[in-house]
């Protein structure tokens, strides 16, 4: 009991999370108490947007003040935490706005759905703050359980229910692996803190724990061969929820992966480096190649998100402060593009039960040029096209830079990344050319008028992507401040990402020759 955080310190370190949770609880009660409202669900979504805004202010405030550290080293207030939190808040706000539009059209959702989104968000924020595997795990469960329910949010749709149950079963399976790994790591070290894991000498039990942990993480980020749930769940879940999963759950999973790998299981890097190397390579190739064969846009985006997991794994492997910054910038660009793309798809899909196919996009430019341009920018951002693709280009550029500047340059992996990106042009450009070059078939219904909130989301996403594509410096500087740090700056920097070059040496070779 010598070093546990005082309740007051805990409150101070978790101020944004507590703000978020208090608002959420009030929202839940307000929703339950009813009150007259023509659409309680939309009122709840707008209230939730307000809570997200207030939380974002609290996050910025906490970042500026350097809050968030506890003396027992179980929570950290480093820039990485706050930057990831801001990306998560951005993604959630976008998903809530899309949800509002969707509800306007389908009236299929209950007023608790925004509450569950906020509760999932609070779990994600705990994950990004935690330097203790127990807290990480509880945060992960908080996020996952809420998202299982969210995937089944549309109770009149059998496909939504199917997505929910599939996600639940595979997610619970992955959580089992993760918990098993955590238990073995605790058994080997006698502590669940990342700092203690990072200071330990790996024993056989430690390595088995790391292996199980990696299986759990690979499930959560959707890396091949643990990706099989992704297309079905992304396709079956309601569009706003898919956007939420693709943007926020993915960002949070990568924040967890990066922090645990960088601060926790570093001593075993010789063992996991080749494994993750192959995981990244296979994920990029399989994700992009399979996406080529998908006529369904949501499934195509699901495979594209698998491919993006692969690109992000390359950054994680680079294992440096620059890589952490690259991941933050990448997640920001990816979140903007995802939210923008799903906002457009939400309007094009007309609330139909069947999801949009590429044929449904034909000639969109001729009827609704704004939507076509917005979707094109987002798809080009996924692709990483310069200028027109905006920040997507720099996201990939920073990842490549970090990978090449790593202790052991990941040259082969970078070549795979570039080739996989070239392959991805196949499906992104097909969708874009369908919108611009094909005539509008007469039997296709006219997309509805863009509702205000969705319009704002699209404009913000597209403008932010384009501006960051020309002037990436402000965001990249912000991302560079997003470093992993164990203690406040005033004290000597301890437990920072420290990897000695010799440890990593030769792992690249081990990776390329199995």
């Amino acid at each position, binding site marked *: 009991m010598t070093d546990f955080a005082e309740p007051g310190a805990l409150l101070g370190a978790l101020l944004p999370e507590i703000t978020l949770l208090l608002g959420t609880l009030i929202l839940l009660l307000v929703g*339950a*108490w009813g009150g007259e409202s023509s659409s309680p669900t939309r009122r709840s979504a707008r209230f939730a947007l307000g809570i997200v805004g207030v939380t974002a202010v609290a996050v910025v405030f906490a970042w500026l003040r350097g809050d968030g550290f506890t003396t027992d080293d179980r929570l950290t207030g480093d820039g990485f935490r706050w930057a990831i939190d801001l990306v998560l808040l951005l993604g959630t706000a976008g998903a809530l706005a899309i949800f509002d539009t969707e509800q306007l059209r389908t009236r299929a959702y209950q007023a608790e759905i925004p509450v569950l989104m906020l509760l999932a968000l609070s779990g994600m924020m705990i994950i990004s703050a935690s330097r203790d595997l127990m807290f990480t795990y509880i945060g992960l469960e908080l996020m996952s359980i809420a998202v299982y329910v969210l995937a089944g949010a549309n109770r009149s749709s059998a496909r939504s229910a199917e997505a929910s149950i599939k996600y639940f079963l595979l997610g619970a399976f992955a959580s089992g692996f993760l918990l098993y790994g955590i238990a073995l790591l605790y058994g080997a070290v006698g502590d669940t803190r990342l700092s203690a894991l990072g200071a330990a000498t790996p024993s056989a039990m430690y390595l088995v724990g790391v292996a199980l942990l990696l299986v759990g993480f690979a499930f959560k980020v959707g890396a091949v061969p643990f990706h099989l749930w992704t297309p079905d769940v992304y396709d079956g879940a309601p569009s706003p929820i898919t956007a939420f999963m693709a943007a926020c759950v993915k960002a949070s999973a990568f924040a967890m992966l990066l922090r645990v790998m960088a601060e926790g299981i570093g001593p075993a890097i010789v063992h996991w480096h080749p494994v993750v190397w192959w995981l990244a390579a296979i994920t990029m190739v399989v994700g992009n190649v399979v996406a080529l064969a998908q006529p369904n846009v949501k499934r195509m985006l699901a495979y594209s998100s698998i491919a993006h997991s692969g690109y992000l794994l390359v950054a994680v492997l680079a294992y440096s402060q620059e890589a952490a910054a690259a991941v933050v910038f990448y997640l920001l660009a990816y979140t903007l593009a995802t939210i923008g793309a799903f906002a457009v798809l939400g309007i094009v899909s007309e609330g139909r039960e069947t999801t949009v196919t590429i044929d449904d996009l034909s000639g969109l430019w001729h009827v609704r040029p704004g939507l076509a341009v917005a979707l094109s920018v987002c798809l080009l951002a996924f692709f990483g096209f310069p200028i027109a693709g905006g920040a997507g280009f720099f996201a990939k550029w920073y990842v490549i830079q970090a990978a090449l500047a790593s202790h052991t340059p990941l040259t082969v992996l970078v070549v795979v990344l570039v080739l996989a990106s070239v392959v991805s042009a196949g499906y992104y450009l097909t969708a874009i050319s369908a919108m611009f070059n094909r005539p509008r078939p007469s039997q296709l219904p006219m997309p509805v008028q863009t509702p205000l909130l969705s319009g704002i989301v699209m404009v913000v996403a597209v403008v932010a992507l384009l501006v960051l594509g020309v002037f990436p410096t402000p965001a990249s500087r912000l991302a560079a401040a997003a470093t992993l740090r164990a203690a406040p700056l005033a004290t000597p920097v301890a437990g920072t990402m420290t990897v000695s070059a010799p440890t990593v040496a030769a792992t690249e070779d081990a990776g390329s020759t199995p």
Partner: protein
Amino acid sequence: MLREYLPVLLLLGFAAVNAVVILGLGELVTRTHPTEIKQQPYESGMAPLGDARDRFSVKFYLVAMLFIVFDIETVFMIPWGVHYQQLSCAVPLVDGACPAGQLSFFGLGEMLVFALILLVGYIFVWKKGGLSWD
């Protein structure tokens, strides 16, 4: 240490022997004259209707789920109750009691937060009609 569990073992043994004896005795002393009526499952004297493998209403699931949630809440309260004296004392206990002037609200506070959050859940369920059958 394991000696304390001897009664548990005895009880287990008693239950097992009891079951064997009762079933065995029944098997030994009864004469069987099966008729169709006797072979029917007993349903409180009513004539059994339909198949026992009926689909249950999803309401049962909601009740079971709420039961689990509040059951787990109770599990957390047991260690808290046992440890409460130490938790509500700012310094380690002296002879099993807290020195004068060292009482703290730490123990009470942490359970209050826990219980209040669940209370919100309880009010929510109540207001949504989760506790009523129809």
